[in-house]
């Protein structure tokens, strides 16, 4: 009981300590506000921007952008992954092309994407879509491929229909791998969002940060960076929760409390 409480506290010690050192250096005047504003200043900037309504607006826009890209790219990746995982023919026809495109870092396509879509919303969604597509696609195919063939044979010999086989054996068997893909995809999603929003934008956390840079508001820049970190952490927590709920049968997941 006692050691559990200590275990809960331990991971927080270092960040809290750093914060304390940072704050005291700022208070002592060693760190100037131009270079690195104090934690309190960052929090105050956050409170101020929330009151003016700017921060909620930018947060919402960033979140909407990220979610839309994830939904589109993730769905395409999942469906194509299912197709190529289940059909040898489709895999023959499609997989090597997909693998070829995968070797292009998606951020390298920014100039081309701007030529295609301009600097509007489509360009940003397109980048996020491509970014999240690959990890979901690859891990869906891999998940299906790595299902124990004896389980599929068992399903066949017990007379499961194709749909029954898919729902009872293939999908749940591939799920751990698909969730790993989702986790990667979320990481790429935030990264792409940051880059996309700093290209040219008139809302979102990235815009807020770039705009603050122009006015030398270091506290707001720092606030933006912290928000990205928090959003990334939140997304990671959601996948962990999903894993724990959906994979509770797996001893590797349900032992973590």
């Amino acid at each position, binding site marked *: 009981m006692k050691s559990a409480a200590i275990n809960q506290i331990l991971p927080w010690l270092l960040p809290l300590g750093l914060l304390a050192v940072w704050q005291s250096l700022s208070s002592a005047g060693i760190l100037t506000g131009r270079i690195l504003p104090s934690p309190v200043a960052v929090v105050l900037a956050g409170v101020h921007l929330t009151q003016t309504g700017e921060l909620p607006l930018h947060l919402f826009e960033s979140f909407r952008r990220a979610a839309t890209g994830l939904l589109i790219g993730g769905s395409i990746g999942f469906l194509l992954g299912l197709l190529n995982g289940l059909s040898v023919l489709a895999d023959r026809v499609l997989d090597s092309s997909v693998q070829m495109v995968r070797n292009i870092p998606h951020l390298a396509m920014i100039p081309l994407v701007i030529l295609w879509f301009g600097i509007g919303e489509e360009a940003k969604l397109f980048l996020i879509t491509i970014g999240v597509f690959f990890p979901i696609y690859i891990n869906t195919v891999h998940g299906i491929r790595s299902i*124990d063939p*004896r*389980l599929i*044979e*068992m399903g*066949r*010999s*017990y*007379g*499961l229909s194709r749909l029954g086989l898919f729902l*009872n*054996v293939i999908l*749940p*068997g591939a*799920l751990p791998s698909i969730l790993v893909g989702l986790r990667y995809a979320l990481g790429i999603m935030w990264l792409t969002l940051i880059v996309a929003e700093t290209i040219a934008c008139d809302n979102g956390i990235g815009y807020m940060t770039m705009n603050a840079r122009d006015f030398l508001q270091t506290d707001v820049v720092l606030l933006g960076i912290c928000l990205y970190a928090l959003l990334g952490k939140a997304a990671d927590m959601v996948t962990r929760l999903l894993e724990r709920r959906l*994979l*509770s*049968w*797996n*001893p590797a997941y349900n032992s973590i409390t």
Partner: protein
Amino acid sequence: MVQAILNQPIQETRKTPLVQVSRVSKQFGKKRVLHEIDLEVAEHELVVVVGRSGCGKSTMLRLLAGLETATEGQIFVDGLGLRGANAVARLMFQNSALLPWKTVLGNVVLAAPRTSDAPAVAMEALSQVGLADRAKDWPAILSGGQQQRVALARALASQAGLLLLDEPLGALDALTRLEMQALIEKIWIKRRFSIVLVTHDVEEAVTLGDRVLVMDRGQFVLEKEILMARPRTRTSPELVELKEEILSRVMGS
């Protein structure tokens, strides 16, 4: 319909062949694994096949299950030529092949006939193997022997007329294996189905079999009918003698 027939009380029906294998050969590429096999399994008969590893036992069971097709010859089930999966047969492996993401009960329900009382049928099968109290557990936390009992319950719940057991006890420790043998025999006597059991344990073969067949390089080379009463005492002189005879045939040549 089928269920109603299967649930009828046992009568003297040993003569009716449930499955008939007629001059079946199986080739994988150039490699001939089974060579003109003949086999009849009567209703409510327990046939045991012993043989060295690689002689073709599993291949024969997979043919009976309809998971492979014969290169030559034919298999008849209830007098009809077998095409595709054998609906009356259920295969059970050394590995229990339970779905880890379904509970014990969920695994068994999956095999039960798709009617509204499937959960009841599944629970009934689980109590027969003595695992009704583990119904809600994940398979991963059961012992190897318990997992095999769940696999057996799954086969029972499917109301199959023919259980194809491919070294189902091979991975179990000696004590659990004896327990499982007794359990299989008990359930088999109570329910009305046939068994083809593949094993490399000759003692298991003579303790359980109505008939023991020795397979060697894709052919049956010895057949022994055993008419002794059940449950059999492993140490009885006849059984020990039979065991020696079969063992020497398995090891010989």
